[in-house]
């Protein structure tokens, strides 16, 4: 019936492959979407060459936020950290395969915002990271 809740989103929401927390980890960051109360934490392990060798997300929130986190985390394993720094909003939207209004866009991009704040080693995540 609807594009917004494509099977892939419901499936990743209900059965995420990468939910959890890596301990120890090399990079960790967490943030909230105050509007919805969505919460995402991402933990990463990197190797000496600067590649992401493993990644997990944890948190709670709507199907869009959690599914996009699962898809994002899955997609960055094996990628160089430098490449992850360049990821933008289109990258996430393409994976989700849906169009989103301004309110739900924040849900979809929370995980990318958290990821980029983490790889850049920032103290605080800002919306400009995913514009």
């Amino acid at each position, binding site marked *: *019936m*609807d594009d*917004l*809740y494509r099977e892939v989103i*419901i499936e990743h*929401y*209900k059965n995420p492959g990468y939910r959890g927390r890596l301990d120890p980890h090399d990079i960790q960051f967490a943030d909230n979407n105050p*509007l*919805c*109360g*969505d*919460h995402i934490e991402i933990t990463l392990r990197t190797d000496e060459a600067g590649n992401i060798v493993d990644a997990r997300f944890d948190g*709670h*929130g*709507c*199907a*869009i*936020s959690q599914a996009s986190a699962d898809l994002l985390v899955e997609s960055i394993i094996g990628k160089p950290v430098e490449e992850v720094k360049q990821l933008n909003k289109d990258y996430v939207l393409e994976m989700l395969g849906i169009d989103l209004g301004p309110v*739900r866009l924040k*849900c979809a991009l929370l995980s990318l915002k958290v990821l980029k704040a983490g790889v850049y080693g920032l103290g605080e995540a800002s919306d400009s990271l995913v514009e």
Partner: protein
Amino acid sequence: MPLNVTKIRNDFPIFQREIQPGVPLVYLDSTATSQKPLAVIEAMNDFYRRSNANIHRGVHTLAEESTALYEQARVKIAKFIHAPSAHQIIYTRNTTESINLVAYSWGRANLKAGDLVILTEMEHHSNLVPWHILQGERGIELDFIPVTEEGLLNLEAYKALLSRGPKLVSFTHMSNVLGTINPAAEIIRLAHEAGAVTVVDAAQSVPHLKVDVQALDADFLAFSAHKMCGPTGIGALYGKMALLESMPPFLGGGDMIKEVHLRSFRPNTLPYKFEAGTPAIAEAVGFGAAVDYLSALGMDAIAAHEHEITEYALERLEEVPGVKVFGPSAQYKGGVTAFVLDGVHPHDVAQILDRDGIAVRAGHHCAQPLHERFGLPATSRASFYLYNTKDEVDLLINGIYKVKEMFG
């Protein structure tokens, strides 16, 4: 006399709207803002087409007319809440600004370090943050009347707080999440016995119940037009005359002064002392039209209708497996139902309901501490007003079953 809801719905142009082709609007978000009847839209439209001018200082025909319309609306609003005088109605932008006016003007003049202000755990952010700011500025102390599991204020705990000699008690008349209608008259009586001044956040009560500021003996009472069929951008603060007169101005500028010299000013009389700058004139006219509209229907009839819908909605929601409703039983509440559905985030619930044209709200509804109290990040909220029907409740329930199926 019961409301003629079919006729009422025809008064609201927005109900002609289809959200998608063939999908009518089911508007269950009046707690956020109500829809507007044609009478209000037309009153504002007429004002701009016929009478628009700035108020108070002009002597030309239009200035006289707009001033008269602006002030007539104030008289209507005063009567609506049974204020002794229209001079005690201060136009603000909304409830939030009304509460801020009290905090900035009365609060700064009367509160000092260590003074206790009592709030409740069920407040909207608009009745928390102004006091947080004053706490940072002045070192006042804040304490909170706890909310019971059932969603009522714990009045025994309140009495214990009162024994600490608070200067102010500021509380919501009706919760925008739980729907709880608090026993305002009793809360105020007890506060007065303890020597405290009271502020009533009436954003949710004035639109839905008969509110009488004199019967309540409220010191201050704040509400917004847009939740009671009026426009956005205008609200009101009622205050007792002696308090308002004793208070310093809030914002400085035109209209709030009697005279201005290079190095000094003398403030205007009430209510203008608190109305700096060109106000929302057309909105005031719309506010007056909204009060006329509600008064003609009768607040008791509106409250009775909403009670019936709420009772029915609670009954139907509770029969859906996996749904948990927050807040007290229908006898203690107005037309607000906050709920969660097992395994589905409230945002997803709201988004899927929107596909069927059903507008509910999802989030913490500007009451994050209350959600923390119940251990929830968010809820979905369906709220009802004079134009809602039991058929719409049925559509909501069918929609929730669809959500369950998708996430099942």
